[in-house]
């Protein structure tokens, strides 16, 4: 039976990739059911951005192996600037196209039962554990057409699992490197922190295709059980040829914390949603995100924290710098559900425009179903303050350098949240490159 779809990928294709990879049958079923729903589901509808003409369905999907990286000492040039050679993280996975080029993990963590591996290895070795969380509580297969497509065609990703009471101080880092310029990335990251555990995760998305066009369809699920604490950092740096859909969702139970620090530095058209559900009492989330828009790039960033638990705390902070004729919409939505008494919800979105042709919009939205709560929001879209420029220049600093200081300063409240020093440095470099 074939599914009626404009996609070049059908049931047989899905069966074949699933069999080739020896996937558990639950995943094969999930993939096939997802494919069946693709046509009937709606495309996502990011507020204030029209994506009807964006390409999300034309791409190359064949399995493409990436060459292994034998020693971290001779990293391919593209990757070099992403690492501090003297300070290579101990827990590191590098995914190159559809395969793993490099992977290390600290032995102690292994002994404590920490799982830090690519998604396909996880499916082979920990199928039950993955099944328990995969597209269940955070992102649903039938959320929209793209999530269904994602489930059907997932071709990469990582699985991170930290058992109960295990507290990890050293960060876990994964680099997703799309070396093949035409290959579509259907990447799935699943992070699970069991009760009273703690972890820091950082990921990088890298590609260097500006000529060829392809897509990235990224779904990431972050689950924090009671009292768990997850610090999640990302630097998205896909190039202008990639049209991206990024869906990052978190679920936090009693007294759990999920903190996001997202550097959204893609050069292509991007829609990104980052939703955190504070299910438990006393759950907390800080959703910090920065972006720099340049060229003709169109982007939409929607961050939302949905608060069910009592005395939960949600804080969204978005900062964007727009240059040339880039267009970016920031939506920050705080939602307190019925029963979420004593909850606190705050949103702040600020956009700095560096060019008269750039367009930016900041929309903080509060939806409150409960009386006994506190909330606040702030938004601004503005240009560089001439008085600040005057002050800096009056100390001899050139106009360009003064503007650079103001821009970095504007983004600093988010950049400084990134949990790994080297990644923070790297994000600053990416910002530097995008702004100048």
């Amino acid at each position: 039976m074939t599914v009626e779809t404009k996609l070049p990928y059908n049931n047989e294709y899905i069966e074949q990739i699933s069999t080739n990879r020896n996937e558990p049958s639950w995943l094969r079923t999930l993939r096939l059911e997802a494919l069946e729903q693709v046509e009937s589901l709606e495309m996502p509808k990011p507020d204030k951005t029209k994506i009807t003409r964006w390409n999300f369905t034309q791409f190359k999907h064949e399995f493409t192996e990436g060459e292994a990286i034998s020693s971290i000492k001779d990293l391919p040039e593209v990757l070099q600037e992403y690492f501090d050679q003297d300070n290579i993280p101990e827990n590191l996975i590098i995914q190159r196209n559809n395969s793993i080029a490099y992977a290390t993990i600290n032995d102690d963590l292994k002994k404590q039962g920490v799982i830090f591996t690519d998604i396909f290895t996880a499916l082979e070795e920990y199928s039950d554990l993955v099944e328990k969380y995969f597209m269940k509580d955070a992102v649903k297969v039938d959320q929209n057409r793209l999530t269904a497509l994602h489930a059907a065609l997932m071709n990469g990703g990582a699985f991170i699992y930290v058992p109960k009471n295990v507290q990890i101080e050293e960060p876990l880092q994964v680099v997703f490197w799309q070396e093949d310029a035409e290959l579509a990335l259907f990447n799935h990251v699943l992070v699970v922190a069991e009760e009273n555990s703690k972890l820091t995760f950082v990921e990088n998305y890298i590609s260097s295709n500006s000529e060829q066009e392809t897509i990235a369809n990224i779904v990431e699920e972050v689950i924090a059980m009671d009292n768990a604490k997850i610090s999640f950092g990302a630097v998205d740096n896909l190039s202008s040829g990639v049209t991206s859909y990024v869906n990052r969702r978190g679920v936090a139970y009693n007294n759990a914390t999920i903190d996001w620090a997202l550097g959204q530095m893609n050069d292509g058209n991007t829609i990104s949603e980052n939703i955190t559900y504070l299910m438990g009492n006393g759950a907390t989330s800080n959703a910090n995100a920065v972006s720099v828009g340049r060229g003709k790039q169109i982007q939409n960033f929607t961050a939302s924290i949905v608060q069910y638990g009592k005395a939960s705390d949600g804080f969204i902070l978005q900062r964007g710098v727009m240059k040339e004729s880039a267009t970016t919409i920031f939506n920050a939505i705080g939602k307190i559900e019925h029963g979420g008494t004593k909850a606190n919800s705050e949103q702040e979105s600020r956009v700095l425009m560096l060019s008269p042709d750039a367009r930016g919009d900041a929309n903080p939205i509060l939806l409150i179903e409960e009386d006994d709560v506190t909330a606040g929001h702030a938004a601004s879209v503005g240009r560089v303050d001439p008085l600040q420029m005057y002050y800096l220049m009056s100390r001899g600093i050139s106009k360009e350098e003064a503007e650079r200081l103001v821009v970095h300063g504007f983004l600093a409240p988010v950049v400084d949240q990134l949990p790994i020093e080297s990644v923070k440095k790297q994000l600053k470099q990416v910002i530097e490159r995008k702004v100048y």
Partner: protein
Amino acid sequence: MAGSVLEIKNLHVEIEGKEILKGVDLTIKGGEFHAIMGPNGTGKSTLASAIMGHPKYEVTEGSITLDGEDVLEMEVDERARAGLFLAMQYPSEITGVTTSDFLRSAINARREEGNEVPLMKFIKELDKDLNFLEIDQNMATRYLNEGFSGGEKKRNEILQLMQLKPEIAILDEIDSGLDIDALKVVSKGINKMRGENLGCLIITHYQRLLNYITPDYVHVMMQGRVVKSGGPELAKRLEAEGYDWVKDELGIEDETVEQNA
């Protein structure tokens, strides 16, 4: 030649179409300390802003030169690198930029590319000046002026003066909002810089600053002009008697710039 010469001739300045300065003449040489006093709203800050190149102030007539070079032709940053410094009455707050990063950029802006100040040297000198001005070390890592108290902002301006070592410094109400101890510390900083390589223009309302920093010359500004000049004794008389006698002497009726009709 020791020190620089700032020469202001027949300076007329407008802000948003309103003429504030109506012909100011003033020359400041290296080694000289000048004080400018005068009632509120008579154009003292306007003079300081026009010298530094504030974007809102338009010079409509007259000239400003530094060692013969036309200052009015220079961009704000060029003026600073030429040797001018203005401690502002209301310094800007710059979110996300630490005092120390800012200072390092300002110092490096004065040096050739590839000849940036070595980090250790910078930190050492900064620590020295922070100690001298009795400023908490953590101010260096705080965002520039953000959340600083009035007095902390003023100290920070003097910290910048000490770090940047200009030829000509203009200090606009550096004493306002300072408690007595802070006033002493700030004066100590300024006096440490005093020497034949620094010319200084101190705008103040109060003799108490001039008790610590004795000026060589005192000028009175009214109605957008320097209407009277003298030595340190002039400031003392103003402190004791106010401005009425100056007005009487010069036949001035309204002490401020006349209000827009």
